[in-house]
């Protein structure tokens, strides 16, 4: 098990899954920006899935509402993203041609990913109240999804695996955000709006579920 991620990465690399890394963009930038956006995605989902379990003492004993727990995850992920993004901006000194105005899209794209991740995570957290192993499962899935999110390069959508992987939300959000920020892809405004709309619709749905679930969550969160 400890070697599995290394074996998986090398196997996928050997199979040519990560062959394409964009239109001549340095691999270091592809991976760095990919990981930055992917971590926003995974931290939002994992953080929100775990947050009720982690904060149950406050919820049960101080009467802390459930929603602020999710809000705290949003702030925590935004903070982590800001630090990573600032480090990336410094690293771009070696790739000065990538200092473009497109970098300004990054916070908005990250926020859109966070909204999506928090929506999914908050839904999962309801079930995690009853099935505690779900938190471990989500954590594990978030790790292995890294290899199927285009972080290490674009994936050929014509293959059987590619057809499946390229429709995953993590792949769509990560590759789109990275392409926009690094400017090697035309900014597709309709695609961007589409992603933001999906995030918000999902968010509204998640809040509706939360409202209905509050009673059973409080009954069982011990």
């Amino acid at each position, binding site marked *: 098990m400890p070697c599995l991620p290394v074996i998986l990465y090398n196997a996928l690399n050997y199979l040519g899954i990560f062959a394409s890394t964009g239109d001549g963009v340095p691999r270091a930038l592809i991976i760095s920006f990919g990981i930055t956006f992917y971590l926003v995605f995974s931290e939002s989902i994992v953080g929100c899935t775990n947050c009720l379990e982690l904060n149950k003492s406050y919820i*049960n004993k101080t009467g*802390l509402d459930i929603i602020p727990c999710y809000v705290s995850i949003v702030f925590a992920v935004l903070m982590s993203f800001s630090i990573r993004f600032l480090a990336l901006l410094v690293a771009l000194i070696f790739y000065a041609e990538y200092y473009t105005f497109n970098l300004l899209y990054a916070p908005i794209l990250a926020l859109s990913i966070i909204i999506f991740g928090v929506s999914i995570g908050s839904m999962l957290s*309801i079930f995690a109240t009853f099935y505690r192993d779900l938190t471990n499962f989500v954590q594990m899935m978030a790790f292995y999804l890294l290899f199927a999110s285009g972080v290490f390069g674009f994936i050929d959508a014509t293959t059987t695996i590619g057809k499946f992987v390229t429709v995953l939300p993590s792949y769509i959000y990560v590759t789109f955000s990275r392409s926009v920020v690094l400017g090697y892809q035309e900014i597709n405004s309709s695609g961007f709006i589409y992603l933001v709309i999906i995030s918000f619709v999902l968010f509204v749905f998640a809040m509706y579920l939360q409202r*209905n679930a509050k009673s059973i969550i409080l*009954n*069982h969160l011990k």
Partner: protein
Amino acid sequence: MIQLILKLREVGKKFTLKNGGSLQPTFLTILKTILGFRVHITKSETDYWALRDINMELIKGESIGIVGLNGAGKSTLLKLLLKRLVADEGTIERHGSIGGLIELGAGFHPEQTGRKNIYVNARLNGATDKEINAKLDSIIKFSELDEFIDMPVKTYSSGMTIRLGFSIAVHFVKDLIVLDEVLAVGDFEFKQKCHRLIHKLKREKSFVLVSHNTRDISLFCDKAIFLHKGRIIKYGDVEEVMKTFSIVRRNDSYEDLISRIEEKREKTPETNVDNQSYDILNNSSFSESEEYRINKFGRIYHNRKIVDNVKVYSSRPLNNGELYLDNTDDLTIKVEFNLKVEVSHVRIGLPFFAENGDMIIGPDSRRFTMSDKNLCKPGAKIIYIKLNECPFNEGRYYVCLAINNDPGFLFREHLVWINIKNTNGSFGKVKTNLNWSYETI
């Protein structure tokens, strides 16, 4: 101006139980609930109403006590008040800042220091950093944790944790403080300090107090609620509620309780001591098959078919073990029992306790029954105890019976309840014969 703090109307809280007693809902139930569909209980489930038809109101400066046996729904009610549970029916109106201490731990982070936890808890109660800094010293001083405040909370004892939690609650909750049996944990001095503080804050803040100590409720509350099996049995005047609660506390059956509440009791004049009897064993929760139990003095009392036919008689009418007296009345109690085997010695104790369990007097028969050969032989025995003018003032007392032959063989904690009315205006729990005199200089 009267300010309403809390108003509950027809409030109910239910839990769905599986036949095995588990609270875990099925996946389908969770899914239906969160999607907003109506959930019908299945054949393998039952709805358990932890609370039903709860109505109460509280205005600012008023305090309410909640009493009830275990499982009555007291903690569930407090959780509803503090939004830690959501009511399944009815409405709860809350006005102003409400907070409290209903569980040990008070929501502290065990790895953080006491000081850090003060900040976190106070912020959760809506306090600003400025307010916290202004009150920090006072909180630490009240909790008596000066030396330990910078240590992680996980190193604190339960008493220290409660002290800190209580201190934060009284400093930052502005309108209504909810306390669930928390004072039972602290030491005597801290309890006294809390009592003084509650007394001082009573005019400016409201309290909801849950305690098994009826004295605490009588001291601090303006009204009380007696909860039983999730329903309000009595609501209103503290003394009335406490009286009902005390009757129930020594009965197992709910039906008994209801009939006793409805019962009208009238005081009648003193009669012959043999007129009224009360069969202890038949009216006791003490089971014949029960081998032994440990009484409040830590001694083992058991019923090994050594004693039977235990009865108590009183010179005043006994109504289901209750006596009603004036504080000037005389009282004779007769205890009859049948000793089935010869024993080494017999000693009978009839200590009198106040309602809160404090022993007021502890007479026993050792001076004339110890090693009395006749008393130790098998056969029916009768013991009399006479109080020449009741030595107690107004209140509710109980007499405890211990027929003892070390290590003992019968114990009955609530032999008779005595309700005493003050008719001569004296004060305190016990009356004494003092000779007063004076001289002028």
